[in-house]
């Protein structure tokens, strides 16, 4: 099967468009999260999304409608993680652990009460990008534009508070607002990315492109661009390769990202040796 044949399928086209947009979002936000040592927040929010999807499915909201149930719950939970970190004097990883285990517990309980696991809920565990609907593509596009506009508006504030929060405060930046903006943008992206790679693998889209870019970037802007490039390309290649070779799509995307990370580490090692 050649590439043009693969691209002629409607579900592949939808997967490529939505997948690339979501992967770019996750990769860009991932740079800020990794540098703030908040990489696992994606995992925590994915678990909350699982719980909220179980709520949506229990009330018979399917596909795009389930996104609209999940979004407010996950957004509030992301702020809850921040509050727990600030008020309960907990480390970020502890707060993420608390919120994510509650999310999974709610999901499992509701799935059990509402008649057991169904195909829709399981697709959120491992992702099912090839089943993305036209409505979900439009939602992904709208949220992509929203997140990119907000990122552009807050870019320097985010950079300053990621570099050093104390110095950012003394530059007149309201770091509480900036932290809230970052976790809410992450929450939006995680809800979207659930269908792409699922709960189990969502962290890879947030962490691996950013970690690879960090190996090679020669400036902050180049780090963002490299991360976005890897994220987007990994989805395009992953979808085509998995379809052609009959492999699970989400796992293929993750493995491509892993290969890119290994390659970046090797290139950095070679460059450092040449410098010395």
């Amino acid at each position, binding site marked *: 099967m050649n590439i043009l044949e693969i691209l002629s399928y409607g579900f592949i086209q939808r997967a490529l468009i939505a997948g690339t947009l979501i992967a770019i979002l996750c990769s860009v936000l991932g740079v800020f999260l990794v540098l703030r040592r908040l990489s696992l927040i994606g995992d925590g929010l994915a678990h909350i999304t699982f719980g909220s999807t179980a709520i949506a499915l229990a009330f018979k909201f399917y596909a795009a409608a389930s996104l609209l149930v999940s979004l407010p719950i996950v957004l509030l939970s992301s702020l809850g993680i921040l509050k727990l970190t600030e008020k309960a004097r907990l480390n970020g990883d502890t707060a993420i652990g608390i919120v994510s285990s509650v999310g999974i517990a709610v999901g499992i309980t509701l799935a059990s009460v509402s008649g057991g696991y169904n195909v829709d809920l399981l697709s959120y565990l491992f992702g099912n990008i090839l089943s993305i609907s036209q409505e979900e593509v439009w939602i992904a596009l709208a949220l992509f534009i929203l997140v990119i506009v907000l990122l552009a508006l807050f870019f320097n*504030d985010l950079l300053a508070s990621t570099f050093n929060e104390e110095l950012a405060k003394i530059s007149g930046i309201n770091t509480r607002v900036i932290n809230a903006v970052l976790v809410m943008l992450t929450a939006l992206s995680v809800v979207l990315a659930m269908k792409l790679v699922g709960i189990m693998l969502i962290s890879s889209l947030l962490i691996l492109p950013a970690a690879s870019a960090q190996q090679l970037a*020669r400036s902050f802007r180049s780090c963002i661009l490299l991360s976005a490039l890897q994220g987007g390309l990994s989805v395009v290649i992953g979808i085509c390769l998995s379809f052609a070779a009959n492999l699970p799509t989400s796992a293929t995307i993750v493995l491509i990202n892993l290969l890119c990370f290994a390659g970046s580490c090797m290139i950095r090692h070679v460059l450092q040796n040449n410098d010395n």
Partner: protein
Amino acid sequence: MAEEIVAANMLTCRYHEGYVLRDITFSARQGDYIGIVGPNGSGKSTLIQALLGLKPVCSGSATLFGKPCSSFDQWGKVGYLPQSLHLFNPSFPATVAEVVSLGLLSTKKFPRRLTQHDRQIVDVILESLGIYDIRSKLIGELSGGQQQRVLLARALVNEPELLILDEPTAALDPDTRHKFYHLISELNQLQGITILLVTHDTGVIGEYASRMLYLDTRMLFYGTFDDFCHSPEMSALFGEHSQHLMCHRH
């Protein structure tokens, strides 16, 4: 009379374990160079953080440029250089120019855009501090002394009237440390920038500062280094024979 830049009046801070600062009263006017010394845990950094609004004040008051620190918003007038150790993630992928340009955000309103003119301002400060050649290097790839110069450039890029330094040379070797303090002294004398310096090095205060504030939770002394050398507080703190050891360089 020169403008009052910083003032603390009976400033008191306490946390769970008790008082960290108690009844601190002092002021700094434009062009002053004040050295803040004291043993570990004496509240030096807490005083700085309370003045910058980073730590809450329990009682008393503190002002910057005549405004209460808690509601102060003219951050373009203030440059701050914290201890370089643990200041940032060493693998942070930002260039020297990017880090220094962040100092200009204090003069901007949302959305804080940096212009071509801002980039020229950054180049000027990098050149004046002798680090223009490394402007494209990543900050994590620099030596401790170079990193400290970059952070000083970040603190100075918005032409502050007050420069606050919290143990800025803790990670530097003696030669780099001497050059650094000489540079700060020039900024104070040539540009009239008010300096608040937290340090463990009383010799630096004797050499450069116009006044010294000795803290040990409470304010034990505030005056010139000469006065300190001849004060009963000096003998009480360091013993009868300490004067020669501490003040001979002055």
